[in-house]
């Protein structure tokens, strides 16, 4: 069985929506932060619920992530372009007339690859499920995987601590909710 075949609906939707989050933010790959935002916006499942209990919601997380460096070049700099006589709005209008709405800012490619940390977090979500003796991976396990992924490169952990959340407490909440779901 491949890992994704073990994913329950909420985890699967989270992974799909993480890609959309990366695209919306103009980032070039899916990172742990996009998984985190997607989980927060998931609505159902232990992962979403755990984040809610700690006061985290998708739009606030999105704002924190929006201008994080290192996730892709970010938004186009209209002021800087204007300083050399390029009207970004005009360029955007012309591009969108030919390639559709959002084409310049979001790109046409639907798919973004997973970054190394996001892949690691998803692999760890499988390990977390196995450790809890669960056959399937839900949003709660994805959250545990995000929390388990090594701190130095894990942007999601940084976002959480910046938001005043204690990762250990969040882990405890997620574990409790996963267990009560599975009971």
């Amino acid at each position, binding site marked *: 069985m491949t890992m994704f075949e073990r994913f329950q609906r909420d985890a699967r939707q989270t992974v799909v929506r993480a890609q959309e989050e990366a695209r919306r933010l103009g980032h070039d790959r899916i990172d742990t932060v996009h998984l985190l935002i997607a989980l927060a916006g998931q609505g159902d499942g232990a992962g979403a619920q755990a984040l809610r209990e700690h006061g985290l919601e998708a739009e606030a997380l999105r704002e924190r992530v929006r201008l994080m460096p290192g996730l892709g070049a970010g938004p186009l700099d209209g002021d800087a372009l204007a*300083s050399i006589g390029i009207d970004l709005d005009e360029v955007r209008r012309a591009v969108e007339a030919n390639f559709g709405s959002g084409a310049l800012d979001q790109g046409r*490619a639907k798919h*973004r690859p*997973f970054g190394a940390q996001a892949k690691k977090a998803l692999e760890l979500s499988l390990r977390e499920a196995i450790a809890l003796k669960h056959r399937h991976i839900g949003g709660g396990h994805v959250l545990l995987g995000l929390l388990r992924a090594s701190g130095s490169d894990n942007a999601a952990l940084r976002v959480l601590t910046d938001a005043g959340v204690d990762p250990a407490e969040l882990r405890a909440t997620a574990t409790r909710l996963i267990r009560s779901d599975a009971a």
Partner: protein
Amino acid sequence: MNDGVKLAQEASSQDPAIGLRAVRALRHLTDRLEALQVGNARGLGWSWQEIAAVLGVSRQAVHKKHARGRLLGKGK
């Protein structure tokens, strides 16, 4: 007149902070446009060689930059 045009008129062209920021923004815009146009050309059946010729780069360069598979959750 928007702020950007005002900036253009007031900016000292010899200020590297502004000039370099403009270069960076232009490079970023160029990358976006290149990705769009290469994708469009491929969609219309252009070969990598044909695209490279018009771009003025090697086939290898354009292939390396634009040809990576991007399947969700699969491959490298």
